[in-house]
């Protein structure tokens, strides 16, 4: 899912459930059936799960545009030969960023 898709997913989920809650409450109150309220609400929950949780195509319409891949310059090719030390220090940097 891209970022727009994530936001859309959350919105669909929250709105569906709130709407199901409101409709369920009103329907249950009017028909004097607590059970009906719960049934409508559960239906809303299942619908929200089906529409918002799996990674559907409509969550991927705003793909992130990565920069085009650049061929490594001569400096980078020389540096990449000492791989192990460089990778380890990069991993250290990344995990400390992630902790924030």
């Amino acid at each position: 899912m891209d970022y727009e898709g994530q936001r859309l997913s959350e919105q669909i989920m929250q709105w569906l459930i709130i709407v199901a809650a409101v409709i369920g409450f009103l329907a249950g109150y009017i028909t004097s059936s607590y059970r009906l309220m719960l049934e409508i609400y559960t239906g809303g929950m299942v619908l929200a799960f089906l529409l918002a949780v799996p990674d559907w195509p409509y969550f991927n319409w705003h793909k992130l545009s990565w920069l085009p891949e650049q061929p490594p310059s001569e400096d980078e090719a020389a540096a990449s030969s000492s791989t192990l030390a460089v990778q380890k220090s990069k991993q250290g940097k990344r995990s400390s960023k992630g902790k924030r």
Partner: protein
Amino acid sequence: MHTFLYRTNSLLTFVASVLVVLCILASITDYFHRDSAVVAVDIVQVDRFQVSQAGNDEAFLAFNISADLRSVFTWNTKQLFVFLAVEYATPENAVNQVSVWDRIIERREDALIALPRVQNKYRLVDQGRNMRGRDLNLTMYWNAMPKSGRIYTGQKTLTGYRLPDTYS
């Protein structure tokens, strides 16, 4: 990280939170409910009035209980616990309440009670021997146990009853 598990977790917690709100709202609607309960109770006969083995006054009464509690039911009512209490005051005890009969009503249709002659289910025993000639109140209580939310009670008191002055 927006993984499948993360979204499922987020959905479930949201569902649970809103559900709790729904349960509370349902209970709030009970507050606005007005009932038209009809209650009539009478003491048909004093079967026996004596001193029990433990040395306390005990009365065996037969009641005529008739009540229509159907209007007490709301969409949020799980059951009504209905009981009849004999209430009186003695010099020693300012308040005496003894439940002599009860019934659990789970459906609205069953809330129509018509018992022309029923004996007290539970023993009507005093603390001491102070019941002779005592004035009694008969109070019908209905305790509404909800499907969710606030538990509340209604009651109807009928006065003017009196136990015999002598044992029988």
